[in-house]
């Protein structure tokens, strides 16, 4: 499946773009997505374990399956306030 992923903050700077079009196997999980991201952008390797995932505006963990029509985002730990 093809999905568009939003990225933010430090991660956006490392990758050089706020959106990514990615191709994943059907039924791929959050961890699969992170693995794919790391393969394409090895510069994020040291940050991977801190990265947060969301789907349709809710946090998800690495085991959650990605829905092909969902809004998916990856970002560093938040620092608002």
């Amino acid at each position, binding site marked *: 499946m093809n999905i568009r992923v939003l990225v933010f903050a430090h991660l956006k700077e490392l990758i050089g773009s706020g959106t990514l079009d990615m191709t994943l196997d059907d039924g791929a999980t959050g961890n699969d997505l992170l693995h794919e991201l790391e393969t394409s952008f090895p510069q994020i390797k040291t940050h991977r374990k801190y990265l947060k995932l969301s789907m349709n505006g809710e946090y998800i963990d690495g085991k959650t399956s990605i829905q092909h029509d969902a809004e998916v985002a990856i970002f560093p730990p938040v620092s*608002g306030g």
Partner: protein
Amino acid sequence: MYEIVEHEIDVEKVIARVSVPEAGAVTTFIGLTRNFTGEMKVELLQYEAYHSMAIKMMERIGLEAVEKYDIRKIAITHRIGDVAVEEASVVIAVSASHRKPAFQACEYAIDTLKEIVPIWKKESMTNGKQKWIANDPDLKKL
């Protein structure tokens, strides 16, 4: 009641949003850009938000605060973009019949905002250096 703005926050307006005749107490929290972080002189903070999710998470904080504490209303305004020293990045206002839950809910709201609302800040120092910040002290290395 929940908004992300790109201009200076009007504190009175945020307070006005929680005003109800039943309220005997209003507490507010204002987060501001400080002039120093450790030894480094800060020029400004730059905030970035994942807008739709940030609003959703602020709404959740508000609902949870009303469930947990005996309060009337809560309003949260977060600013994004450049925020200079002494300017406010976030304003939270809570109204309640009595002061104790108003304080508790206000502190709960800012504590939880700093944990779950997808907004990030980058510090720009007067010496030209820039650094992304993590609220979690264990992640300062990021």
